[in-house]
């Protein structure tokens, strides 16, 4: 099956920043992303869990598949939002089917 090189960027970020992050991604020309729920985690700001919370507490994971040439624009956009916020960004090489979608 024909596959194409791409990058998988995974951004774990505070839920209240989700809207700003995805807006920035769209502005940077990212055509698609997927948001996964996060149950809990641990990092420099300590341990947390989603159970029983009411507000827009917690974090979400935003996954973007992009063509390699779009990566830098995406990272700049994401970084500008994430910079001062709790969260992590990781980038993996991947292959995708149907490259015309990215």
């Amino acid at each position, binding site marked *: 099956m024909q596959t194409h090189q791409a990058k998988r960027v995974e951004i774990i970020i505070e839920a209240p920043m989700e809207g700003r992050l995805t807006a920035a991604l769209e502005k940077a020309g990212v055509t698609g992303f997927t948001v996964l729920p996060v149950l809990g985690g641990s990092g420099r700001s300590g341990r*947390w869990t989603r*159970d029983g919370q009411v507000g827009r507490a917690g974090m979400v994971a935003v996954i973007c598949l992009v063509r390699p040439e779009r990566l830098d624009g995406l990272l700049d956009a994401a970084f500008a939002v994430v910079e001062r916020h709790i969260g992590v960004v990781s980038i993996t090489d991947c292959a995708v089917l149907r490259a015309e979608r990215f």
Partner: protein
Amino acid sequence: MSDLFRLAADNLLSLAILCFVLGLLAALARSELTVPEAAAKAISLYLLFSIGFKGGASVAAHGADGALLAALAAGVVLSFVLPLLAFALLRFMTRLGRVDAAAVAAHYGSISIVTFVTATSVLVDRGITAEGYMVAVAAAMEAPAIVSALWLASRGGGGSRMDGDLWREILLNGSIVLLVGSFVIGMLTGAEGLDRIASFIVAPFQGVLCLFLLDMGLVAGRGLRGARGVLGAGALCFGVIMPPIGAATGLAAGLLLGLSPGGVALLMVLAASASYIAVPAAMRVALPDANPSVYLTLSLGVTFPFNLVVGIPLYVAVATALAAG
């Protein structure tokens, strides 16, 4: 045996406190008892819808006219001013930096809707009536404190990010919209509307509130466990001194407005309580450098239980004594 025990429980408040304490102890003992996030959110939607609707229906029944506007204005002013007071106290009593102090101050200028809901139930339980529009005042007091706090933070170059999106998020946050919306629906449909859904929003209300307080105890307990050592003695003191100070300003405002004793008590509760839902989310966006453990622990782990156990009975007692109906 039962007689002795039952002394502790002559009113709804004891029941509410016991449920909160159960959650607190379970979390501190690291029990894996948890309320699913979706269930906790659904319960809070129920409480907001119910309290808003009942407030609106009560206004429809008794009328409101100018008094409503005056109370709203007073609430907005309190919410703007209380953060300044809180900020000054924090800078004096604690070693918190400007940004952290401003973030905490925002919470104390804003309100805790669960504290308000509990106080409302306590009043109902004791047969004390209050102005139905106090729920609108509660909604009006959610946001202004954030503005004051961001101003306080920015004076030191704290670089808060106050953009149009943030404004919308704050003013149209879920609890404000649902409170105001159901208040208006309650006002429009009045006693007939209330009748139709009373067996949903009135009858089970206190039981649902108890379950919600259990969850609050669980969340507060987990927060306290994770935040050991985050708060110094000064901050802890602030957490129990600020509520009565806030209540005093609420008392003054309530007496000036000529509210009923119940209304005065509720305004005291609003002024004394600290937000733990809307403001934390706003602070994460606008003041990302402020440490969330500090403000969440203070608001949910110190001030909320203080108001539940000591505050509400105190405010109700003072209000009924001074605001002779």
